[in-house]
Structure formats: C-alpha cells, structure tokens
C-alpha cells in the first residue's frame, strides 16, 4: 500500500500524479504533508513540488479534456473534502488510459459522474459567492468583502470581480482560510492579514473604518429589500432554498434594521369578504 503526501498546493498534487506514473506505484491514499496514513503497513512517499512535472501532467490532461472538464480537475482540488486527492487521481488515470478523447462524457463511469458532480457543486458555490458577497466602503475608498465559503472558491471568483470592478480598489478576504485577494486598480494579489479584526470574521467591518455614507447605503438597500417583498406571495421554503441560511452572514439585507420596516399603505381592499377564485 502506497501513501503519498504533498505540500498542499495544486502543483504539488499534480507532481504526485507524475511521480506515481514514473514509479508505477499507484497510490492507495494521498494526503497533505503531516497527515497520517490509514494503515500501519503503508509505504510513505513525500513528493516535493516540481513545477515542470506538474505542468506536464496538466498539459497532458489539456490535450484530452474539454476546457470545462479540465477546470473540474482543478475544482476537485479546491473542493478540499476528504478523499478529493484520490478522486482526482482516479479520474486522471481514467483519462490517460482512454484512447479516445471525450471520456469526461462517459457518465456511466462512477468517477466521471463524481467529478462532474463536484464541478457542479463548486460552480454553485462560486456562483453564490459572486451573488451574495457584499462590499463595504472604507474611509480610504477600499471596498471590502469578508467571506468564508464552504469550499475554497476564492481563486475561482477573482476573475469575475476583476472585470466587474475595474475602477474601484477591493479586497475579498476568506476568514476561514486566512487569505484574500486584493485589487489595487492595476492587478490582483493574494494577501494575508496578520491580525484580523474579530468583527471581520463575522462578516462586518469595524464601524470606525467605514466611510461616512456607508451606513446610509446599507440602510437604503435594506429598505429596498423590504419593499420589493410581496407579502401575499410569501413562500419561505422557496426563499430558503435559494438563499440558504449559511449565506445570511454576508447579506446586508439580512442584518438587523436601524428603523423598523414600515409597509406602504397603497391598497384599498375590503376586509373579510374574500372569495376564492374558482
């Protein structure tokens, strides 16, 4: 039984793949450096990352896979769930073993299904982050969005925000994984903040950092959210399906109100004499 470990980077994982092929010793388990093997009889191989080897594996995959399927390989790594490395490895083996291209469409193969499912799950999380993160403007004009997603999607969303907010500096910070993406009007860099303000972890920036009009715009957004609601159509189940509670911590519109919501009285309906439509 072969237990491979790597430094935790994507390139590192691809290097493991390369080495396994080179040695013809197929892994039974892959883990990050420091993790313990499941069985005591495992042969342990620590594989230092080598860019060139990683690149060869990646290019080999690119030749046989569609762009979407290739991205799914990367997404499987970012998925970070236990067993993701072995899954990735089994998929890669299938790809290299198949003489024709298009193997990613062979949905009758369980590992293909699984990778596609992960791709979908990651896409959904990415999409939700792009939808639900909220920026708050600080006094020096930086737009800050604290996040802590279930999966490591920050690398997947940076491109979207770089294009969208090309004329404003911004920082998206993953509190759970303790790193962020900072855009300075020129380019995006990965950054790490030593001492993270506590409130940032909860999705709120310390009030004294915020620009003067920030609370007003947050309040305006809450007012807007309250007034687009149509009480007659209330459907909480659907609401929660689209906007699961775990995302509420990001959402300005789900934060406590400064002023209670005051419905507009613009309907003149008689009370108590409703008749159901046939």
């Amino acid at each position, binding site marked *: 039984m072969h237990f491979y470990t790597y430094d935790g980077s994507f390139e590192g994982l691809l290097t493991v793949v390369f080495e396994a092929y080179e040695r013809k010793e197929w892994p039974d388990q892959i883990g990050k450096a420091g993790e313990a093997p499941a069985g005591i009889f495992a042969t342990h191989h620590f594989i230092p990352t080598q860019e060139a080897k990683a690149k060869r594996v990646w290019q080999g995959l690119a030749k046989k896979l569609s762009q979407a399927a290739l991205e799914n390989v990367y997404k499987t790594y970012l998925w970070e769930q236990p067993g993701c490395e072995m899954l990735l490895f089994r998929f890669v083996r299938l790809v290299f073993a198949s003489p024709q291209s298009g193997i990613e469409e*062979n949905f009758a193969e369980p590992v293909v299904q699984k990778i596609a499912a992960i791709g979908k799950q990651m896409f959904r999380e990415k999409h939700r982050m792009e939808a639900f993160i909220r920026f708050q403007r600080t006094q020096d004009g930086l737009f800050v969005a604290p996040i802590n997603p279930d999966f490591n999607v920050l690398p997947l969303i940076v491109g979207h925000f770089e294009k969208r907010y090309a004329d404003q500096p911004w920082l998206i910070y993953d509190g759970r994984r303790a790193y962020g993406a900072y855009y300075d009007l020129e380019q995006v860099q990965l950054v790490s903040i030593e001492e993270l303000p506590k409130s940032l972890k909860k999705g709120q920036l310390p009030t004294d950092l915020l620009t003067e009009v920030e609370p007003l715009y947050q309040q305006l957004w809450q007012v807007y959210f309250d007034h687009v609601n149509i009480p007659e159509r209330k459907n909480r189940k659907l609401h929660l399906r689209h906007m699961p509670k775990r995302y509420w911590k990001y959402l300005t519109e789900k934060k406590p109100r400064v002023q209670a919501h005051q419905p507009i009285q*613009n309907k003149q309906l008689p009370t108590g004499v409703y*008749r159901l439509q046939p």
Partner: protein
Amino acid sequence: MQHTVIEKLSILADSAKYDVSCSSSGGKRKNEGKGLGNAEGMGICHSYTEDGRCVSLLKILLTNFCIYDCAYCVSRKSNDVKRVAFTVQEVVDLTINFYRRNYIEGLFLSSGIFKDADYTMERLVRVARKLRQEHKFNGYIHLKTIPGASEELIREAGLYADRLSVNIELPTEASLQTLAPEKNFTEVLTPMSHIKDQLVLVKEEKKLFKSTPAFAPAGQSTQLIVGASPENDRQILTLASGLYQNYELKRVYYSGYVPVTADSRLPLISTPPIIRENRLYQADWLLRLYGFGVNELVDEQNPQLDLQIDPKLAWALRNRQVFPLEINTADYEMIVRVPGIGLKSAKKIVAARRFAPLTWEHLRQIGVVLKRAKYFITAGGRSLERREWDEEVIRRRILFGEKGDRNGLWGSQLDLFSQAG
C-alpha cells in the same frame, strides 16, 4: 434630504414590485478600459425576496404620479396615495452605489406617466444616458417604454438600454377596455413593433458594419397579468406564442394578479393565482425551448393548463401512443419530451450513449427523475414497470406516491418547483 431618499425609495420600489420581470440575462457589455461593471450574458440573482423571487436589479419607478387610471395598478390616478418622484441624479447615485457594493446587476426603471408620455420617457432616457456616458456604467439597464412615447425617444433608449419592454398587461383588447380604458392594443403594439424593427435593422447593419451601435442587445420583453381578467390559458399562450414569432420578444412574463383594490371590475381573490402562473411559465419554456406547439399543450377541449400536474406530463399522458421510447435510440427531440428528463439530462443521455448502452442505473446517475420517466421509456428494451398502467393510475402514482399515500398531496401541490422539467 437623506430622509426623503429613503422615503422615495420605499414608495417607488413598493409600486414597482408588481412588475415581475427581473431578468438581467442577455446583457453583454464588456468592460473595456477600466470602467464600472461587466455583463457576460448570464444574469445573477443577488438576493431573493421572502416569496422566493429573484432580486437582480434595482427595480423602481421614477415617479408614481400618473395621469392614467388603470384599475389593477397601485399608482392609478384615483388611488389616494402619497406621490413622489426621484430626480435623475438620485436614480443614478442609487444605481452606482448599489452596483459598487455588489447588491445588484443593474437598473430596471419604469414610471407612472407624468404630464405625458414623451415627457416621462425623456427622463428615463436621461438616466440611462447619464449612467452610460458619464459613469461608464456597463451594468444592466432595462427601461420600460411608456406607451405613446415617440419613435425617436425609443430609438435613443435602445442605444443605452440592454432591454426594452412594453407591458401588454391584459391579454385581450376587451379586457384592456374594461380595466385600463385610456389604453388600447394599438398603443402598446406600436412601440413594440418599432423596437422590433430597430432590432432587425441593427442586426442586419451589424453584418455589414461592425461599428454599428448596439440596440437593446438583450431584446424586448413584455408582461401579462394573469387572473385579473377572464381569459383562459389557451388565449394567453396563443398571444405569447404570437408575440415570440411576430415581435421577436425574448420573454413574456406572467404576473399572477395581486389584488390592490376593491374595484368591482376586478375579481375578489384571497391569494394570487401562483400555481396557475407557474404552469404558464412551464408551458412557456416548453414553447420556447422544447419544441412544443401551443395546440399540443392546450386546445379547445382543454383550454386551461392542468393545475395538478405540469404541462409536459399532461401532454405525455394524453399521448401515450408515442411511448415508450427506447432511450438508447430515440431522437433528442423526443427525449426532451419525456417527463422527468430535462434539457441537460437529455444532452447527457445523447452524449453518454455513444460509449455504451445506457441502463436504468446510468439514467439515475445522469439525473433523470425515474419515478416520472419510468412510465414512458425503456432502457435496453427493459422496462421498470411490469404492468401497463392507465393514465389515471400514472397520474395518481406520480402525484401521491406509489403506496397510495394521500398525505403527499399537499406537499406536492405546494412545492411548486419540484415538478418542473
């Protein structure tokens, strides 16, 4: 000052909320040279209301002053409500600041008719122009076209807006006469055909000159109110399909009537017809994307869509002679017609069967809803059902479960979206 903006926003968002179209898809504006915003054609819902509707755009009226008196509308002249109006700059500021914070994809601006149609339309256009030209805003802009506005203004609106819409609201001239006496079909259809002509023209010119300025690249849409007037689903869907064919409409939106007044011309209802609205949307998808014709979904004998089951299942049950289909050989066009198989699953089936004949297990993994599909297909000649059930039994088994559990009824009726596809 601040207080007034909050108050204006409350009133003008509240009055705009009954317009259900909130899509921000189809807008493609690339951010070239460090402007603000980028739209790639796929709309994003940034939030959801408590009734589960997508919030994608800042959807407001410029003003709720109105010279008309449409019975179904909260802004009608005779309604005793507070009237306010945004300035052009206020709308621009709200849009930009909401956009920068990732609250919205853009603006959906509509308005009551202030003075006259052109006066109002001119202000809507001014907001859009300011956003595009002064703020280099590439987010989504949807402008409502005020019925009766001049062709010139509509053309200018199309230069800045991604989408233009003219709401028909009521499906027949007769209903329009009763409920919105100052409006008529011609007044609504004229701007619609102006927009269509422009869309076609620009498309043609684009082929010759790449630099032709875009005109409403996300096309035009309209809204029909359902349940405020007596039309049946067949009339509504026939109108919708005609609009898709003759006016190049991207979308027709259906808005279940929410009672706003005790006017005797309007039906008294306690809840909006949400299930009916949902069935119309499902039928609309089948018309646009699944290759169904109106007559296959509703006809003279069945002018209303079945409220209990979705229109695709209803069609399949009426057309048992077409089934069962063998999933390994049937055409894609037929596979999409099987209840429980959506467009994505159908594509996967056609792709995957090139590698190996598909079994029931494969279909399950692909995401086919077997408890619906199994009555209509075979896999490798095998059927999952040993018996030939008749229409009534299949309907009952799908609705209430196979063990005859009647408690399933409420769940399945209220859980509207589980039956889509």
